């Protein structure tokens, strides 16, 4: 079995050479940059607003036990049922049990990356339930049988012709090249499915401890319908989504929209407090929440990278990342793509197996600049590299670092080595050295200087 790194290197190489696809992605992101900048300009001080957002998340994450306890108490007071899942398997079991008890048949889902993380659709389909994704992008990806390409824009890599063909094949509709008409096809197809579904599954963007509400952000209205029409609402959320106060959303909701999609506010930001209440005419009879750990506490235990749990999944770091734009989202092979995915995946799935993602970075820092909650993303990539070298050094790490240590402690050896290096530099270009040859293929080495830096320094000092 090829490991994650081999697959990544292979896919990344192929995708990076696909100029058409890269141009398509750049074009798709062009409008985002314009809108994002327009919206950011409306902030009287975006940088300080980032501080406020970061502080709101910091204070909740660093007091997680108490804040979570408070959320649970209030969620239950609102009439909701809380379930705890240590890992993906437990979360799937809980959801299957709820579906079985309810004698459900049809399930409609709104976009929920946590459900991708636990491979929920597979489990539900194997158990015989009809599951349909209602977010347009996720619906398209479900028909394609492909994972989301970007955790906010799931099918941004798919051209309209391909979507038209897909709809013709699966829904029997006439071909069209109009995004508007394609959207209307999905709208018409899904409307009856919301009405017929027994269970609606959503994610959660924020869990408000103070009021026991969950907050869901979306543009299409599909989450609103998913939580309104079926008789059971199940929300699946990571434990880190909690915030202290309802008031914190006054900063987090607009910033999520601006950073994530260049909007002043996402079209629907909805707070749910329990199932249908007395006097209300509709809404589900039951409201369940599954609070998932799935290695989040492992990340919590690392104070250096704990701020990665502040992430509000806006996707801004993906949109500005030169690596993401060149290799695309699918190459990562992870639930969460881009810089944030490269930081957290080694914690969620194992550093040894996933450290290669920390190397897939130019360390330009665009991600850190873009993050609305100030996660120190590019430094965390370096931290992961360091931790991996410490935890399970490769042969190269060991030979190279020990060798470097040995030489650097002996100035005479360093001088001899330097002279040798300068003399043999032209040869290096031609030798098929491991780790070097792929770099050299497209680059020329500079000419070696006649003198070493230390010799030059001595001359200058004497002037």
């Amino acid at each position, binding site marked *: 079995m090829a490991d994650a790194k081999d697959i990544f290197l292979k896919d990344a190489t192929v995708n990076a050479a696909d100029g058409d696809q890269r141009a398509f992605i750049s074009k798709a992101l062009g409008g985002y940059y314009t809108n994002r900048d327009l919206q950011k300009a409306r902030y009287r001080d975006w940088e300080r607003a980032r501080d406020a957002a970061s502080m709101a998340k910091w204070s909740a994450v660093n007091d997680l036990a108490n804040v979570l306890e408070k959320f649970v108490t209030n969620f239950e007071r609102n009439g909701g049922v809380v379930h705890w899942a240590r890992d993906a398997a437990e979360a799937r079991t809980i959801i299957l049990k709820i579906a079985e008890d309810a004698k459900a048949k049809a399930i409609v889902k709104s976009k929920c990356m946590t459900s991708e993380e636990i491979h929920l659709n597979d489990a539900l389909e194997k158990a015989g339930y009809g599951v349909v994704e209602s977010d347009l992008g996720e619906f398209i990806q479900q028909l394609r049988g492909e994972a989301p390409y970007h955790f906010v824009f799931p*099918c941004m890599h*798919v051209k309209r012709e391909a979507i038209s063909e897909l709809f013709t094949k699966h829904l029997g509709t006439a071909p069209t090249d109009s*995004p508007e008409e394609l959207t209307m096809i999905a709208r018409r197809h899904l409307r009856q499915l919301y009405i017929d579904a027994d269970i609606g599954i959503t994610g959660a963007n924020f869990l408000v401890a103070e009021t026991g509400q969950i907050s869901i952000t979306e543009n299409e209205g599909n989450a609103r319908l998913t939580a309104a029409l079926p008789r059971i609402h199940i929300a699946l959320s990571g434990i880190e989504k909690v915030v202290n106060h309802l008031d914190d959303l006054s900063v987090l909701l607009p910033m999520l929209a601006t950073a994530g999609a260049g909007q*002043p506010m996402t079209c629907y930001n909805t707070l749910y407090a329990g199932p249908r209440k007395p006097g*209300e005419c509709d*809404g589900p009879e039951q409201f369940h929440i599954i609070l998932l750990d799935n290695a989040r506490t492992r990340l919590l235990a690392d104070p250096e990278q704990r701020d990665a749990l502040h992430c509000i999944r806006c996707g801004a770091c993906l949109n500005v990342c030169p690596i993401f734009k060149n290799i695309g989202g699918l190459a990562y092979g992870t639930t969460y793509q881009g810089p944030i995915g490269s930081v957290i995946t080694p914690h969620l799935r194992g550093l040894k197996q996933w450290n290669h993602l920390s190397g897939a970075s130019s360390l330009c820092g665009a991600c850190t600049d873009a993050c609305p909650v100030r996660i120190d993303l590019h430094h965390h990539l370096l931290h992961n590299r360091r931790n991996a070298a410490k935890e399970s050094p490769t042969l190269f790490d060991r030979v190279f670092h020990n060798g470097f240590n040995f030489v650097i402690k002996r100035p005479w050896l360093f001088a001899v080595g330097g002279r040798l290096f300068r003399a043999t530099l032209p040869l290096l270009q031609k030798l098929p050295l491991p780790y070097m040859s792929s770099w050299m293929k497209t680059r020329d080495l500079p000419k070696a200087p006649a003198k070493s830096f230390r010799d030059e320094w001595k001359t200058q000092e004497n002037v």
Partner: protein
Amino acid sequence: MSDARSDIFARIREALKVKAPRPHLKAETSSPKTSVAAKPWLPDGGESVEASLQILSEQLAKLKAVLIRVPDHVSAARALADLVAQKSWKKVAYHGHPIIQPLVASLPCEAWEADKSFDKQRLEGCDAGLTTCESIVAQLGSILVSSQSSGGRALSVLPHAHVVIAEVSQVVPDLGTSLALAKARHGDTMPSMLSYITGPSRTGDIERILVLGAHGPKELFLILVG
């Protein structure tokens, strides 16, 4: 075997034994309350009613929502009837609220009080849903509806258009004020749904090209009285 809840709490408490440094912030927070501290940094919501209304109308225009200003409820009824006629709506579902009931009495189409005898299939067949709202956020162009003020969860999202009737006094400058107002009004008994609606339903999932009316209403109208 210990249960998942206690295991997860034990893991959290263990993990938090080592403290993480407070973020190095450029900002000096003037208040522990996020919205108060962040007010001077966020988008402007206007310092006066006139300023807020100006910002609101600009925001709604950018969102492609339609703002209809009328002086009183009599003209609101006329504006609504004109809208129904202009759009050729055949069926309108409405929330049975004292402000709305007089408006629908003389509508040139079928009008159904949706929260009296809720029927999702019938609601799906309606051209428009007519609701009140809790408050309107000038800063962002957002309209806060609730399962109480809007005839439930589906009425404001399932029909093909959404019309909101509100009074100028419901316009607040910013999101922080609106959230505080909701908390003060409902306290420990929040409606099961509170939803900020910011423009008609939209998607950019196909090639990042904006399309209105993905799953929710294609059109959003705000009739503002006063």
